[in-house]
């Protein structure tokens, strides 16, 4: 059940046209509030905002190529204790939506009364790069849109974005379609659920010609192909860089056990992480014992254990949003490692995180006859 409509872009100004759409959604009370990225007054960063007063919808810009926080975390924060009593439209990217679907399955968020508005994503810069661009030029977002139009992929985009094979949101009620569309003239608004259709109806948009839909689908297929190729290249290098204990320890050498990667991960939702538990409040004898056995030990302890444990707990749901790498003060390539391991591990269960609410989480379900080579043949 999908319907595609076309939104004419006024005076070639895409962002202003989209603003009209957000305003209408609030004015016509199609949603009671919008969770939408807005540019901060300084222009240096673009952050999620929860807007309930249309007058305060000052500088919405969900197309700005920066993602400081994975929005799935924010929706989880808002809906974990109680589902939303009012209708909230949530504007997010594909990786954020995929993480949110995983969190819903993990019972850490509720989609009740949530309208999911996904946007086609061309990639994002790190917060730092975006800040520098904003300080150098007045409008990194316009420059970015221009580059996209010219079909250029900026090599300074975050690496996880360059290798993201899911540029299009899955499971959105409404999708803002940009890929393969001449968005100087018009953009594609696609409804994929009854809720989405209701909103499309109320916005009084005219149906899109089938050719536009096909054009977008073709461009998406091409982009996915490009990105998948890039992904394989990057991950092949990652595999070489980390394989074996020597390489792995070299890769983890700059890790300072700050656990930032865990703190920003949308899937690391545990209220109390094992690594913050009393298990790690140890008597000095423990440390001295380990030290005496090996002669010396790295302090603080358990660097490798931390990363491997985090991986074993959430890698089947890892969407590869790369927030972990952004949060790492020392550029440990955690995102690439998790992407690589995630790909290999998710493959075993034919599982794609965020693909569907119906797919059960790999480690909460089982089949009686499967994985026959895992147990030892005795």
């Amino acid at each position, binding site marked *: 059940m999908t319907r595609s409509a076309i939104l004419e872009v006024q005076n070639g100004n895409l962002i202003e046209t989209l603003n009209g759409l957000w305003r209408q959604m609030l004015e016509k009370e199609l949603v009671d509030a919008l969770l939408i990225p807005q540019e901060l007054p300084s222009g240096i960063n673009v952050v999620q905002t929860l807007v309930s007063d249309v007058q305060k919808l000052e500088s919405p810009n969900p197309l700005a190529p920066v993602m400081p926080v994975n929005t799935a975390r924010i929706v989880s924060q808002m809906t974990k204790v109680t589902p939303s009593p009012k209708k909230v439209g949530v504007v997010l990217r594909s990786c954020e939506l995929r993480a949110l679907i995983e969190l819903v399955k993990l019972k850490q968020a509720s989609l009740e009364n949530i309208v999911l508005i996904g946007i086609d994503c061309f990639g994002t810069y790190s917060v730092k790069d975006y800040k520098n661009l904003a300080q150098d030029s007045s409008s990194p977002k316009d420059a970015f849109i221009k580059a996209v139009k010219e079909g250029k992929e900026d090599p300074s985009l975050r690496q996880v974005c360059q290798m993201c094979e899911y540029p299009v949101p899955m499971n959105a009620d409404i999708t803002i379609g940009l890929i393969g569309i001449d968005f100087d003239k018009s953009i594609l608004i696609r409804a994929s659920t009854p809720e989405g259709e209701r909103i499309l109806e109320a916005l009084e948009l005219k149906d899109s010609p089938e050719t536009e839909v096909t054009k977008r689908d073709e461009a998406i297929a091409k982009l996915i192909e490009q990105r998948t190729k890039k992904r394989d290249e990057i991950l092949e290098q990652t595999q070489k860089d980390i394989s074996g204990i020597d390489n792995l320890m070299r890769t983890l050498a700059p890790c300072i056990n700050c656990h930032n990667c865990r703190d920003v991960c949308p899937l690391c939702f545990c209220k109390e992480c094992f690594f913050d538990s009393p298990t790690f409040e140890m008597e000095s004898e423990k440390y001295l014992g380990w030290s005496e056995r090996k002669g010396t030990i790295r302090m603080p302890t*358990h660097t490798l254990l931390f990363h491997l444990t985090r991986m074993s*707990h959430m890698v089947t749901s890892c969407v590869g949003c790369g927030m972990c790498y952004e949060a790492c003060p020392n550029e440990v390539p955690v995102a690439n490692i998790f992407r690589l*391991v995630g790909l290999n*591990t998710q493959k075993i269960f034919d599982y794609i995180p965020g693909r569907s609410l119906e797919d059960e989480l790999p480690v*909460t379900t089982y089949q009686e006859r499967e994985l026959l080579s895992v147990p030892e043949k*005795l």
Partner: protein
Amino acid sequence: MQEQQEQQQQEEEFEPNIVGLLCHWCTYTAADLAGTTRTQYPTNIRPIQTMCSGMVDPVYVLWALLGGADGVMIGACHPADCHYVSGNYKCRRKTAVLKSILNTLGLEDDRVWLCWISAAEGQKFADTVAKMVDELKKKGPNPINEYWST
């Protein structure tokens, strides 16, 4: 003289340390059975009783391996025999995930054994430990012991 040399060699032979995470309802009882029937098996295994293989968090296995154990045995009920219906199946999935991680990172996933051993299979428990000790002797000590920087 020769006797002395032989004795020295024997002493120097590598004896693997195995951590056994054994389900209370099957493998742990099998280990008990092996004991009460005086079945001989190598003393390399350090059994730890768990209530179910389904509760074996991968971190237990990782802690043992990174702590220097040469091998980890997870003892679980045969398929369809789990006391809690499905713990062993879930354990199999978690073990698959863990092995995939170790494999991708180029660490030795064959130091982790998932074994179906029922409470009645004391002999099988003894044989499995013996087999694991043999295999680990062939593999040699866990290389992690050479690293202080983990």
